[in-house]
Structures are given as C-alpha cells and as structure tokens.
C-alpha cells in the first residue's frame, strides 16, 4: 500500500514496521532457499564431511561429483530419468495439441454445437472421477503397464482449455475477420494468426502440463506394476523417501567404491528438480497471464 500513497506522508509505514516486513519476507525466502542449498551441497559433499556433520550439510568443504557419476552411469536412476523425459515430452506434445485444438474449436461462441461441447469441458472441471472408476477404465482399455496410462487420462486439463479459450476469445476480432475476408480458412487462421499471438500463454500452459507429467507419482504407482518401467518420481520415493539402500546392482557400471548414500539420494533429488529449474525462469514472467485469464473469465 505504501508505494501508492504519497500524500503528506501520512501512510508511509514507520521504520519498525518496515523492518518487521523485511524480516518476515526474508525468512519466507530463506525457507525456500536453505533447503535447496542443503540438497545441492549434500549431493556434492564427501564421505568425511557427511560423517562429521550428520546426513545433511549446508555447504560442502570439498566438491565431489561422484554421486552424479554413480547415478548417471546406466543403472536404475538413469533409466527412470529417460522414462520421465519421454513421458514428459510425449505427454506435453499430445496435451498441447489436444488443448489448442479444443480451445480453438470452442473459441467462436456462435458455431454449431458450441454450448454442449463447452459444457463437456466445464463439467469435467466439477466432476473429478474417483480413483477406482478411473482405474477400471484404464484397465479395461488394456493400458495397465503401458506408458499411455500415464498420459491419456490426464492429457486434457479442462482448466487449461478454459484459460486458453478465454485468451483466444480476447484476441482482436478485426485481425481474424480481415484474414477471413482475404480467404484464409479456419486452420490457416489458427496457425498464422491465433497461435503466433498466443505464445506467452502457450508457454505457461506448456509448463503446467510438462511439470504435471514430470511430477506425476501416483498414476505410475497405480498403473505400472512393472518396476522396470518406473519413472523418476517412483525411484525417488523408493530410494529417498523410503530410504531403501542403493547398491552396485541398482547403479549399473559404477566402480567398487560407492559414494555415500546421502550424497546419492540428494543427487537424485537434484536430478529431479533441475529440469523444472531450467524451464522456470523463461516462463515465470508470463505466469500472471496464464493463471489469471482463467480465474477472471472462467
């Protein structure tokens, strides 16, 4: 509030209040940054330091990449990472295609069957099917133990469709009508006008889908019985949350001396966070657009 009010200085916060605000915000930021720093540091720490400082170090004395070498040398973790990358890439591509097409198909309110089709999307938002019926559908379609089971049931997120549709409805009508007069068909308008104008919101929705696929844990637990097919999140659960020891068998062609378990565990954790961290900064400035449109115009 303070930044807006300049009249007579009446409402500028007093010094102690401002200091208190600063401290609270700094603590909130520290609550996010410190764990991250600790995870990265522990993954790089040596056995001597881990033995001395307990299982979690905040700053490594000496940097060792042994844990990363161990998990990336072709064992369980490497395979799971590749599975996760594949599911994320294929899933995001399919989701974006279906979402863009559906949102575009619903972006002309007077088109035929517009209302019932829109209702299908809106009600999907209100009715989330239960765990057991969903499982039965996936099972009866023969998708158990298939990667499609991780993709198809969540491929279309109704909320994302509604956000994107709202954005398409907001695009300047004159440009689209002009193109139509010049003889452009519906598909040409989608690819030459609508999509290029929507890059920011598409980036946000793409990130939401990608993060959902990358982070999915329960769908894999539910639908994949074959542990060889497990994605990274399930490996993370087994070896980090449930603290199952990772041995030479699971690590593939590692040398005789294994790096400390704590470092390996944290290296897997870092591995699972890095893709999110890499994409995040590029999309972050568009967040408001992606989230708000849906909330405001739903």
């Amino acid at each position, binding site marked *: 509030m303070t930044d807006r009010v300049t009249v007579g200085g009446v409402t500028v*916060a007093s010094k102690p209040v401002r200091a208190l*605000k600063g401290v609270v915000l700094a603590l909130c930021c520290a609550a996010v940054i410190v764990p991250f720093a600790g995870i990265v540091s522990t993954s790089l720490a040596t056995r001597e330091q881990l033995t001395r400082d307990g299982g979690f170090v905040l700053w490594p004395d000496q940097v060792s990449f042994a844990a990363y070498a161990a998990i990336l040398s072709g064992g369980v973790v490497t395979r799971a990472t590749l599975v996760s990358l594949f599911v994320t890439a294929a899933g995001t591509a399919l989701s974006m295609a279906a979402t863009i097409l559906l949102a575009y198909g619903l972006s002309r309110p007077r088109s*035929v069957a517009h209302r019932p*089709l829109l209702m299908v999307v809106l009600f999907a938002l209100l009715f989330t099917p239960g765990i057991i019926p969903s499982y039965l559908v996936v099972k009866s379609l023969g998708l158990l133990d298939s990667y499609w089971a991780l993709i198809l049931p969540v*491929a279309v997120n109704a909320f994302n469709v509604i956000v994107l549709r709202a954005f398409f409805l907001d695009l300047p009508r004159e440009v689209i009508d002009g193109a139509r007069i010049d003889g452009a068909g519906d598909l040409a308008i989608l690819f030459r006008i609508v999509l290029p104008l929507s890059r920011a919101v598409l980036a946000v929705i793409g990130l939401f889908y990608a993060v959902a696929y990358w982070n999915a844990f*329960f769908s894999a637990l539910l639908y994949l019985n074959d542990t060889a097919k497990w994605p990274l999140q399930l490996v993370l*659960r087994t070896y980090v949350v449930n603290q199952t020891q990772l041995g030479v068998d699971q690590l593939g062609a590692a040398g005789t001396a294994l790096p400390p378990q704590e470092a390996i565990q944290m290296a897997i954790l870092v591995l699972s966070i890095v893709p999110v961290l890499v994409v995040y900064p590029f999309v972050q400035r568009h967040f408001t657009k992606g989230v708000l449109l849906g909330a405001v115009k739903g």
Partner: protein
Amino acid sequence: MRWAGLSWWDRVRRDRILLLATLPGVGLLLTFHYLPWLGNVIAFKDYQPYVGILDSPWTGLANFRIIVSGDPAFLNALTNTLVITLLQVLIVFPAPIALALLLDSLMSERLKRAVQSILYLPHFLSWVIVVAIFMQLLGDGGLLNTFLRDHDLGTVSIVNNPDAFFALVTGQVLWKDAGWATILFLAALSRIDSTLYEASAVDGATRWRQLWHITLPALRSLIVLLLILRLGDALTVGFEQIVLQQAAVGADASEVLDTYVYNNGILAGDWGVSAAVGLVKGVVGLLLVLGANRLAHRFGEQGVYQR
C-alpha cells in the same frame, strides 16, 4: 453467425474445421472423465476383478452400509479428512493473503519480482520431492535434529510422529503452495484504484482503516470464489502427499477418505465398498460446491458461475 437462416446441416458444414478440432480433446474427456462414472456401478455390486463388471452380482445398497454403520476405519478416515481440511481453511487459506499484502507493500519492483520468483518455486516441485525435503530438514537424521544433538538439546520426532502428522502435513502445504497462491491476490491488489488510498489518506485514514475499508473489500469476491472452490474439495486432502507418508506414521493418524478408497479397494481388494465411499465423496463434493455457490449468490457475490 451472420447467416442466421442456415439449416443445421449447413452450419455443420460451415464449422466443420472447428468441430473436428474439438474431437480429440472431447474424446479424451469423455473417455477419462465421463466414462469412469459408469464404473461406479460396482458400488452397487459385489465386484470381483476376474468375473468382470457386468457379471458380478448386484448387491443393492449393501456396500453403502459402511458409511452409516459407524465402521471405525471409515470414521477414522472421515475424521482425519475433516480435521485436515479445517486446518487448511484456517491456516493455509489466509496465509497467501497476508503474504500478498506484504509483497504488495514492497517499494522496489525488482525486489518484489525476485521475492515472487523464489516463493513461487516450491509449487512446481512434486510431492515426492517436498516430502523428501521435509525429511532432510526435520527427520531424525535431518538438519534440525543434527543441530539439536550437536548442542546437547535432545531431539524432536516430527516426521515419524503420529501426533505431529496434522501439523507436518499443514506445514508442507504451506511451504509448497502459500507463495504460489499469492499470484491471484497480487493481481487483485494491483487493480485497486490508487486514488482511493490517496483520498482516504487526505481524510486522515490510518493504514489499518485503509486495509479494512479499501483493500479487503477489493479482495472479497476473490476470497469468496476461492473459498467456494476449497469447500468443494473439503473431502479431498493431499492424496499423493499422504500416501507417501503413511508408512512412517500409520493409518490411525494418516488415513483420509482417498487413501481409504485406495488402500481398502485397490490394494486390499474390497472394490465395491471403496467405490461406494468414493461415489458418495464425489457427490457430496459436488453438492458442497453448488450449495456454497448459491450461498454466495444470496450474499450478492458472483461465485463460480452465474445464473
């Protein structure tokens, strides 16, 4: 459109591309969001996976008896669910509002953006990662307990302690999503007409009065909307989050309705009863949203949808 006199068939021809475009998405929604509702028939059957849905014998409402018969495992799951929901509405819901007010009062735009970037980040981490992080910080061998042990202060059991489970779960949700949830409130705050503050300052309003008479009223519609949505989810509490941590604290402390359906149905094979619980839960959730929405209309708010 402009050619209102077109026959239905001509309109289909005119909009064929749009109709075709909706096909894949609508097909996926029908298959994975609507078709499962048919699967709910097993709530009225004694479902045996090897017999199949169609050939399993009908049992009427027998599967629903567990909901009214005072079955202790079900009641425990229901109670835990409601307690966690209550904690989340009381503690997790207001936190982003306070945080947004704090962020909004920052003078420097750059600093504000930097803080936002940091606070949004946990939202994008999976529950597996969040649970792992909390174990590293608060677990028996974690940062806190190592520190306490090194200074001869004893240790506190948090991660494996059934009595601390509600607090742990609430803390995790707060850590993961309070920052992200500020995004909507910040946008609403940025739309407040700044002349309102200036005028009220001239009239001698204190900052608290401005908060009460200008800022909070401006946020009211959004707060009502989010509360309605939260109410619809009253029976749904962090499924992945809780499944991950059940082994550490046991079912008494951690069983909620969703985990009950999963553990009792898919893992233990009591399909019919679990489907019945799931079905009732879904219907109650829907009724809660519709009811809350009507209530919001009565108070003159917009709610989720308009009539």
